[in-house]
């Protein structure tokens, strides 16, 4: 899920839950059935879960674009770090006695 997708997912989750709560309360109050309110709200939560929790394809419409390497031959910072670590290891090794 990309950054835009995460934002969309969070907003969808909030609106869907608040919307189903509103519908549930009004229906329950008008039909004067508390059980009806709870059932509708529970259905709303399940729908929200299915809609916003899995990594659906519409959450991945804005993939991150990395900038091009300025100098492709230059070793990456990771490679440099590895080299430094190896050098340090070598230096730390005790010299064999003659």
């Amino acid at each position, binding site marked *: *899920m990309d950054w835009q997708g*995460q*934002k969309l*997912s*969070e907003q969808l*989750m*909030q609106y869907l*839950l*608040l919307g189903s*709560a509103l519908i*549930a*309360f009004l229906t*329950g*109050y008008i*039909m*004067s*059935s*508390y059980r009806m*309110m709870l059932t509708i*709200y529970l259905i709303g*939560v399940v729908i*929200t*879960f299915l809609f*916003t*929790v*899995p*990594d659906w394809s519409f959450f991945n419409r804005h993939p991150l674009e990395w900038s091009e390497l300025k100098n492709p031959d230059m070793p990456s910072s990771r490679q440099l770090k590895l080299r430094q670590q190896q050098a340090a290891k070598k230096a730390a090794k005790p010299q064999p006695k003659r």
Partner: protein
Amino acid sequence: MHSFVFRANAVLTFGITVLAALCILASLSDSFHSSLPDINLQVLNVDVLQRLSNGNDEAKLTLHISADLRSVFTWNTKQLFVFVAAEYETQKNQLNQVSLWDLIVERKEDAKIDLRRRNKYGFVDQGSNLRGREFNLTMYWNVMPLTGGIFTGSKVLTGFRLPSEYTR
């Protein structure tokens, strides 16, 4: 919102918060409800007025309990606890309350009550103050909501009097 578990957690926690808000709203909606219960209590007969061996007075009454509490029910009402108390004043105590009868009403259809019967619980005074005593009959109903606090309604019917002599 970067992972499945994180999003699932977010839906469930926000979902429960909204559910709590729904319950609070539902219990608030009860305060806009006004009920007009129709209540009538009568003493059809004083069957017995006697002094018990321990010196206390006891009365046995035949009551006519007629009440329509259907308008008390709302969508947020779990059940009603209805009881009738005899209330009277003596020299020693300003208010004496004796519960004579009670009923748990779980459904709106059952909230229309029309009964003629002897008091369910003994009308016993802690002393010998019942002869010629004037008393009130009060019907109380505790409303137990599905969510929210219990609240109580009552109606007082005045002007009942016990006979001035023991019947046995």
